[in-house]
């Protein structure tokens, strides 16, 4: 187990270096960040040169990358466009997005698995078709459409909730955006659970459990659900990264000043430290989430052992 974790951690190093390098190149390929600062005016060459020098832009791209990575390991992620250190921006943005992701994740896991279980246990009946129709509907409508519609009707027209999230992102304001963000994944979770439950429902060990006279509750929760959750957990784990990335759209619609918003600002203002810094952290989250998923398999299925 320990050795497995260490091996996985070591494997992360090349993945981390590779992804950050690619992002670094891509961000710099967007154009000259200094030209953008001057707006509609031609940059005055002396000032532009001084800014380039201060931003280490007067070196070759590989040299800039090495310099940047060196800085990162000392905890210096550079400064954002408005002069704030990127680490400070991260300090305000990440907690907000993590909270939004958690709210979405809870919706996705609880509602998704519940719907899937319901459909799987009553396959072929009305409940099953109902869940199928519902999930198809959710999957086929893009997030920004549901987002704008909910914001308009729930927030503006009927006044049931705040249309936008207040400063500091209180949990109460995050319910609607969380639901919107969870939507599509929720539908996938329901479909996955349903298939898996339906399949395992016919398994030998389940027939044995029923024959032993175990109460139905125990049969469903311990025997059926636990074994059916393996593919679902894989999906949920990898989806954490997906949710954080998907937050770019949701955060804009609901005025959430999180990672997605900062990334968007970084790209819009051509500020490489913001973009590369945030993406670097997202890459790390993705890698860790994947590792956790693999470790979770062992919890759900005792047959899986890591050495």
């Amino acid at each position, binding site marked *: 187990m320990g050795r497995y974790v260490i091996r996985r951690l070591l494997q992360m190093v090349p993945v981390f270096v590779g992804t950050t390098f690619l992002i670094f190149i891509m961000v710099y390929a*967007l*154009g000259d960040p200094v030209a953008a*600062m001057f*707006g*509609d*005016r031609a940059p005055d060459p002396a000032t532009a040169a001084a800014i380039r020098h201060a931003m280490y832009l007067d070196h070759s791209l590989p040299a800039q990358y090495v310099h940047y990575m060196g800085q990162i390991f000392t905890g210096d992620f550079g400064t954002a466009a408005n002069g704030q250190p990127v680490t400070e921006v991260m300090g305000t943005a990440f907690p907000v997005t993590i909270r939004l992701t958690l709210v979405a994740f809870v919706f996705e896991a609880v509602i998704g698995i519940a719907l899937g279980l319901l459909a799987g246990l009553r396959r072929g009946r009305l409940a099953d078709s109902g869940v199928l129709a519902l999930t198809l509907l959710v999957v086929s409508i893009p997030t920004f459409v549901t987002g704008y519609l909910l914001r308009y009707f729930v927030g503006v027209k009927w006044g049931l909730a705040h249309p*936008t999230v207040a*400063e500091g992102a209180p949990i109460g304001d995050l319910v609607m955006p969380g639901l919107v963000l969870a939507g599509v994944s929720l539908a996938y979770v329901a479909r996955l659970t349903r298939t898996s439950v339906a399949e395992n429902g016919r398994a030998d060990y389940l027939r044995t459990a029923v024959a032993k006279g175990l109460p139905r509750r125990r049969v469903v929760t311990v025997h059926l659900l636990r074994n059916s959750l393996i593919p679902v957990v894989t999906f949920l784990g990898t989806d954490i990264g997906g949710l954080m990335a998907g937050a770019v759209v949701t955060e804009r619609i609901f*005025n959430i000043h999180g990672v997605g918003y900062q990334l968007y600002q970084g790209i819009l203002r051509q500020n490489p430290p913001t973009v590369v810094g945030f993406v670097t952290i997202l890459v790390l989250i993705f890698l860790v989430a994947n590792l956790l998923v693999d470790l979770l398999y062992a919890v759900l299925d005792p047959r899986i052992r890591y050495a």
Partner: protein
Amino acid sequence: MRGAKSAKWVVGAAVVALAATACGSGESSDTKAGGSNDGIVRAWWGDPQNPLEPANTNEVQGGKVLDMIFMNLKEYDPRTGKANLEAADSITTTDQQNFTIKIKPNLKFSDGTPVTASSFVDAWNYGALVTNKQLNSYFFADIDGYDAVHPEKEGTAPTAKTLSGLKVVDDHTFTVKLNQKFSTWPDRLGYKAFAPLPKSFFTDHAGYLNKPVGDGPYKVVSYTKGSSMKLVPNPYYTGPSKPKNKGVLLKVYTDSSTAYADLQAGNLDVLDDIPAEDLSHAKTDLNGRYLNQPAGIIQTISFPLNQKAWNAPGMDKVRLGLSMAIDRKTITQKIFQGTRTPAGDLTSPVLGAAGGYSANLAGEATTYDPAKAKALIQQGGGIPGGHMTIGYNADSGSHKQWVDAVCNSINNVLGDNKACVGAPTGTFADFRNQITKGEMKQPFRSGWQMDYPLIDDFLTPLYATGGSSNDSKYSNPQFDALIKQANAEPDTAKAVQTYQQAEKLLFKDMPVIPLWYQNGEAGWSSRVSHVTENAFSYPVFTDITVNNG
């Protein structure tokens, strides 16, 4: 099961960690506005792109704050755009080159420290020095000694730290020597790059940027970067625009359409960036609490005159013909819902007739006349290569729609649906980069937002030889001579006439096609009244009153 057990621990720890971050940041609700009777105006804001220093702010969101917290030597009247003396008692000159500036006694910054002659002189010296990397330093280029503090060649170290043209005489007097005659120079002093700075700016720079201090109507009480800024009336302010409300809360929104939803739901009071998709119904949505008035912004299409194909003899006719082939009226109505006004010159209506604006200075050059346009283009030898593109940046603004409409208009006139197409560039930075390097081979969109409401600002930087924003690389010695003559003219009315003479040359040479003037819009909630906008399209915050507040 050993493996399973330790895995449980890992998962458990992760859940605890996530829960901890989730609970960790539920505070900071104190800046949340909304109390209906606190008399505070809640206004839309965008995150400023640069640190809030006067000489380093060149975009509207930072400018909005500077406008509230600074009182300059001169300030522009919100209605007429005229430059009035405010912090200055008098600005005098006998030769249009040496100015003596006296500032009013007993002026104070919002931190209680006095505003003196050196508050201005130190600020200007800071703004001009190349090592301070200020984006607006070229504003000081007219002051004697600029070359020494800001050498033009990159990489050259400055030979002086202060401008030799600035001299402090006493606490309330200083003199300015310009490097050439410039009669309207004092009228530029309303631009926020010329704002005075308190001592704390130089002693505690980082602290200043976290909470800027000025001498204007408002004072910053708290600033959370990237999310909000709270301003209250400055107790030390003695100028003419005393705030009529108890303060302003500027709220940063991720998106203007999000802000519009908040305005409709009553969580926001003033929004000066109505999203394009809501323009058509904003007036009814807001029960008429909506304004749409000209702003100091003009949109144009520039020709790359450094390219032979577009600068060959006879091409001036083609350029004129293309201008006459554009149906400005229909495009501004259909695409912009009347938030643009067809241009009749190259300035802006905010200048007023006395300031040099004229609705029909361009004459027939901006009049839609398909038959004449076609004839002119044919006489001039047709579009180079029979095919042209109009370049634009695809990342912001909805440029694609109007560029396509303009091309469509040209194609209809020429009876050739392949004569003109739009040519998008991915990002604004890349687009600007190609323009400033002179790499554009085809016409491209260009726009100009004025720095100060003077006709000179619409002409010199854009069309004088080597001007800082001369995107079309236009050069005409006659034009340059007229500008120089106008700058030296002591009589303002005569100076404006000479500027207009120079402007007329542009409609003969057609380095750009004037398209339309952009309007400023604002919508507001029923909680506030007296919302107006000044020439810069900033809401006049000092005039806004909060109902029953």
